[in-house]
């Protein structure tokens, strides 16, 4: 078959790609008959939920599955090299020089033992006959280009001395070193905070504009794709669902799955479509009140305040959202609110009773009414106990002795959160992440709480599952009149579920108000920067926001920190 399009024009040609992983006699098809192409200088996004095979495709482009036991079928051409039949030598020449890859976890993707500059220089020398000195100069040059301040000095640093954002910049610098024609970025911003994510995406955008290299972006986040690519390919179960120009696919999806996916994405750029948008029994009883709450942790000799003077109230039946980036102290705050952690200082009043320093015995009457749902669906259930037993815990601890009634109540709760009550005796590993989170919710409900602190309850879940769990929480809240404290890093999710929002940074609340106030007219510069960093689904809007971000002043000291 003669190629219709001249080889040089197409950077990537993938035809009927299949990848099978064989483990323990079982064959799992990760990619199933995928075909697409990418013209030089263009950008394509592979979008899909976990297990869709998108990262496997990225690996196949560089022949990374060779020698791992995976079976690769179909044809893959990158920059004119047939990856399937190329010799090891040809493959090495392709990798890094023609197509360079940026990985998800920038810390583990760099060798901890060598200076970052030396690692870049090593890669550069593989593909050029540069001298050691020239290679090092090149490393400093690209580090400087990706915005590492004082690059000549920082080139001697080892990866662990860098922050997450700087590590990702370093990986991008390594990719740039040999001026490749294609950049393959595998979830490049997933491990990063939203403001850092925006900076990295902006950097990628600028670099592409400057060098004209093509981009294949693998991401689970539709918003990230909307910001960065010309064309999207939506994947599911290793197959293509839909492919087309980004505005078309995201604006007018043709397939049901794409529509579900898009409607599941919480957004900041559309009106709030909350089920419970109707006003609550306004300003009901104040359930929980924190005043000047503070918590210190010892770091060797010093002590660091993870939460530093936080005051807030939660009314009966309302949802207070708490947003913040990693390290902002939001989880510590959440754990103090239910007294899993003891506050170092400050007051905490639950329905009039002072509980900040109450002993476990004094807490007893309130314990059950203050529950929590955890972030990690794996760690929050004891793997050695059946889910029914876990849910029954609060009942037994409360002294319920009638086994039949306990089981009946647990079955009722399982059913209420959308699980099959017959799975009472099953163990956590037999459940998916979303189902485990439902078990966690059932366990919290078993205690008949008045307030539940949800600590990143959906951040470990895929976006469609996330939407279902959020909907369940809202439903339960309405039905049972629960108060929720919803802690998350994702501004869009918080906006979707909350009545009022508190924005946290470095252990303090920088802004607090109703959703309309905080999202509509943020008064704090940090809040504004956070909001500006959130990716949006509309590519046109995304471009506008990108230039708006450039106009936003960077706070002092922040450049070095990321």
């Amino acid at each position, binding site marked *: 078959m003669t190629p219709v399009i001249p080889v040089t024009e197409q950077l990537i040609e993938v035809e009927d790609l299949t990848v099978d992983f064989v483990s323990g006699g079982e064959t799992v098809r990760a990619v199933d008959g995928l075909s697409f192409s990418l013209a030089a200088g263009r950008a394509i996004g592979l979008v899909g939920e976990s297990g869709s095979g998108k990262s496997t495709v990225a690996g196949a482009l*560089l022949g*990374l599955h060779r020698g791992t036991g995976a079976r690769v079928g179909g044809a893959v051409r990158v920059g004119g090299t047939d990856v399937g039949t190329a010799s090891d030598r040809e*493959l*090495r*020449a*392709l*990798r*890094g*020089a023609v197509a*360079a*890859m940026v*990985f998800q*976890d920038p810390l*583990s*993707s*760099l*060798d*901890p*033992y*060598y200076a970052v500059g030396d690692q870049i220089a*090593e*890669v550069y020398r*593989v*593909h050029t006959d540069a001298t050691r000195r020239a290679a090092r100069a090149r490393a400093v040059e690209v580090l400087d280009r990706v915005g590492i301040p004082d690059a000549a000095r920082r080139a001697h640093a*080892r990866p*662990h001395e860098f922050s997450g954002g700087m590590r990702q910049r370093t*990986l991008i610098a*390594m990719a740039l070193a040999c001026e490749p024609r294609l950049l393959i970025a595998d979830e490049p911003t997933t491990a990063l905070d939203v403001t850092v994510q925006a900076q990295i995406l902006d950097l990628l955008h600028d670099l592409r504009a400057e060098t004209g290299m093509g981009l294949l972006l693998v991401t689970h986040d539709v918003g990230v794709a909307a910001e960065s690519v010309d064309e999207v390919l939506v994947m599911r179960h290793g197959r293509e669902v839909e492919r087309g120009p980004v505005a078309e696919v995201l604006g007018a999806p043709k397939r049901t799955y794409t529509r579900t996916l898009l409607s599941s994405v919480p957004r900041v750029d559309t009106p709030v479509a909350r089920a419970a948008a109707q006003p609550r029994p306004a300003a009901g009883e104040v359930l929980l009140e924190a005043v000047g709450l503070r918590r210190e942790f010892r770091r*060797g000799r010093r002590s660091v305040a993870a939460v530093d003077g936080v005051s807030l109230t939660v009314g009966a039946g309302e949802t207070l959202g708490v947003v913040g980036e990693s390290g902002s102290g939001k989880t510590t705050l959440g754990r103090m609110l239910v007294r899993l952690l003891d506050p170092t200082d400050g007051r905490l009043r639950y329905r009039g009773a002072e509980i900040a320093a109450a002993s476990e015995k004094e807490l007893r009457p309130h314990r059950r009414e203050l529950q929590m749902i955890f972030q990690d669906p794996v760690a929050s259930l004891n793997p050695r106990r059946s889910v029914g037993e876990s849910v029954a815990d609060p009942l037994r601890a409360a002294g319920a002795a009638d086994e039949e009634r306990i089981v009946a109540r647990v079955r009722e709760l399982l059913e209420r959160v959308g699980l099959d009550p017959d799975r009472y005796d099953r163990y956590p590993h037999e459940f998916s992440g979303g189902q485990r989170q439902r078990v966690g919710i059932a366990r919290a409900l078993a205690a008949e709480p008045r307030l539940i602190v949800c600590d990143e309850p959906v951040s470990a879940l895929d976006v469609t599952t996330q939407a279902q769990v959020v909907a369940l929480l809202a439903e339960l809240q309405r039905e049972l009149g629960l108060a929720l404290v919803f802690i998350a890093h994702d501004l869009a999710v918080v906006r979707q579920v909350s009545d009022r929002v508190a924005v946290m940074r470095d252990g303090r609340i920088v802004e607090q108000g109703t959703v309309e106030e905080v999202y509509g007219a943020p008064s704090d510069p940090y809040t504004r920067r956070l909001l500006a960093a959130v990716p949006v689904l509309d590519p046109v809007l995304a471009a506008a926001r990108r230039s708006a971000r450039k106009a936003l002043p960077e706070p002092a000291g922040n450049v070095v920190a990321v």
Partner: protein
Amino acid sequence: MTRYLLKRLGGAVLVLLVLSVVIYGLFYLAPGDPARLACGERCSTQQVAQVREQLGLGDPVYTQYAHFLRGIVAGRDYSTGTALLHCDAPCLGFSYQTDQQVTSLILDRLPATLSLALGAMVIWLVIGVGTGLLSALRRGGITERALTVLTLAGTGTPVFILGLLLLMLVCAYLQWLPFPTYVPFTDDPEQWAWNMLLPWLTLGLFESAKYARLTRSSTLETLAEDHIRTFRAYGVGERAVVGRHALRGAVPPVIALSALDFGSVMGGAVLTESLFNIPGIGKSLIDGVREIDLPVVVGVVLVTGTAVVVANVVADLLYAAADRRVALL
């Protein structure tokens, strides 16, 4: 860094203090009268009483322990009734059997132990690390299987069995070497080496099994890490990936373990020394135990403890130096 070092050294001193209390306490649990042991079988009751007086054995235990500690730090004097016997710091007392100072007795034994330790370390580093690397890099092949079986067998063999078998094979049947007798290096370096060959092999091969396992597992671990994938994805050749990046990750644990083992061998490779009759520190412990020469036993245990404890600190420092990610807090 300095604080860390001080903290570690403080911990080391604590360990040694505990050890000295334990071992000094045992001194008194021992059956028999120390004064009689010190004096010898043929002493009269009167002579024994005199010795008790000289050694201060009539004092309360804690006073004696204080004297003992002071002796280590500042030296001490024993009066023999007619003359004053001075024992320089670090003073560990006098042997009951030979009346030699324990400190000098141990120093006399040091060269033999050092000879054994150095040679054995060379062997375990070369053979152990080499085997481990080979089996990690030839994964799935027949080489790996053979090496795994060999290593496993090595792990299961007590050092004295290995030594006995080597003796039987090399000395009794093949008669390649005469039965080894220790010759000091300063007397005749060539004879020294020939006679140490079998002990080196014994101890070196014995330790090799452990090093092979460690090297193999840490190399495989490093090879499975993400940064290895990065360099492969950038077209770096397999040789450079393994040589520069994978091996680098395998180095720190091997160095740290070597320091520990060197310390414990220096503190007395009791079994090897006993089997080959090497007059080292470990041998002196066994001799001391057989002859109920308590000052020697106490002295050797303390010296051994010091070697092990110092080795621990050195191992941590080397590990941190080799693995830059470990911050010394």
